[in-house]
């Protein structure tokens, strides 16, 4: 039993290798002042394979709002509710050129001032399985059971963040994060998953780069 627990603990600690690349393009100077906030949102104006997962958006928001160099982040849902109906899938601005007409509405401009919105980050992208192989079989008998085999799969995460400056109504820049990694699961009686945390890695690296980007420290 003790050995089994040890094996399980070891398995959870085993992580596959992930390679992550972050790139950015800066178009304008950026800065965050006291009281400024940022929101990270997914594009949902049309059905698309590149629609970022809700938990990925949440992960980027949480990581930007914590750790060193953290910034004030408004959650996507709270922002959509506060700005309703202007950032719904059918009504959200598609380009920065749509922003000035929105911001000319007094009630909207007042709300943006209230929440201190400085940057709006639009996220697109997804994590997909790009390859898999091997086989694994498990048997369960009254006398016990076990698994035998070897599985491997490769995931790829590719996300791009487009940063809009809500004060100047211009695109401030883009940050992209790509991560790839292979996970393994050898099984000799007990399967031992060695998981490559591809999406998590893409999330952390994107959030860290975005923090640097909006504070103009990169």
């Amino acid at each position, binding site marked *: 039993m003790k050995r089994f627990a040890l094996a399980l603990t070891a398995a959870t600690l085993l992580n596959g290798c992930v390679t992550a690349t972050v790139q950015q393009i800066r178009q304008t100077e950026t800065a965050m002042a006291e009281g400024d906030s940022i929101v990270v949102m997914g594009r*949902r104006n049309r*059905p698309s*394979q590149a*629609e970022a*997962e*809700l*938990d990925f958006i949440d992960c980027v928001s949480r990581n930007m709002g914590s750790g060193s160099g953290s910034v004030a982040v408004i959650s996507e849902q709270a922002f*959509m*509710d*506060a*700005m*309703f*109906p*202007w950032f*719904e*899938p*059918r*009504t959200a601005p598609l380009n920065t050129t749509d922003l000035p007409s929105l911001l000319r*509405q*007094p*009630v*909207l401009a007042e*709300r943006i001032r209230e929440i201190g919105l400085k940057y709006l980050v639009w996220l697109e992208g*997804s994590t997909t399985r790009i390859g898999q192989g091997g086989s694994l079989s498990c048997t369960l008998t009254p006398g016990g059971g076990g698994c035998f085999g070897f599985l491997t799969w490769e995931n790829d995460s590719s996300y791009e963040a487009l940063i809009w400056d809500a004060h100047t109504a211009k695109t401030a820049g883009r940050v992209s994060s790509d991560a790839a990694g292979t996970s393994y699961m050898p099984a000799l009686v007990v399967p031992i998953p060695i998981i490559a945390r591809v999406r998590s890695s893409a999330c952390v690296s994107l959030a860290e780069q975005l923090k640097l980007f909006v504070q103009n420290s990169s």
Partner: protein
Amino acid sequence: MNEIGKPIGATAARAGAFSLLAAVIALLGACAGTKHLEIEGTFPIPLIQKSPVNLGIHLDDALVTYIHTEAIDKKGEWEVSIGPAQQQLFNNLATGVFEGHTFVDGVIAEAPLDGVLRPTITEVQFSLPSQTRSNYYEVWIRYDFQLYDRAGNLVGGWKLPAYGKASKKNYGSASNGLQAAAMAACRDAMAFFSINFSREPVVARWLAAGKPLVPPQPQPQPEQQQPASTPPPDATPDEASSV
């Protein structure tokens, strides 16, 4: 050994097997049976320049109890309960869009109300990712709005199609996905209504005219037994011959 002379382990194993079988049967029953969904959550209040109107809102029983039922091949029957959410939806919508509002029992209202808005749902459709071979649960709701003056005369009406989708990447089960898509469709209806209410030609004309009482619409006459070519009783012989 137990009292009926069988090993305790064997009895326990049989009981376990029976429980497992019962659980599998229950699970299969659940899969094949009707799945009931209800729209849950709260609706935001629109942030918009209020329209200078004080309206009564009449939500009839057909709307507040609206349930859409649809059978999907190999996925069983689905019941999506949309009605119960409508009271909160229209209360929050009206709070943001109108200068004042009150829920009323009919289409006739008293001052200070300017008129009555009567929404109805005329059609609902939904689809699962397996049907459309896409990543999305989708819901369409078609609303019909009728605006009455204070005296209950119809000012006009308009239709509002709403659409909501939810990616299967974000929802583990079809129930949760459809629920999210239905919620998104309701928000879409609210958004579209908020932005376009004052621009609807019927509403814009009525507001521009000072929200007047409109002449009653002629009621459709019951079909006459006489042929259409029969002249009216007070027609002159010349008129009668020209008909």
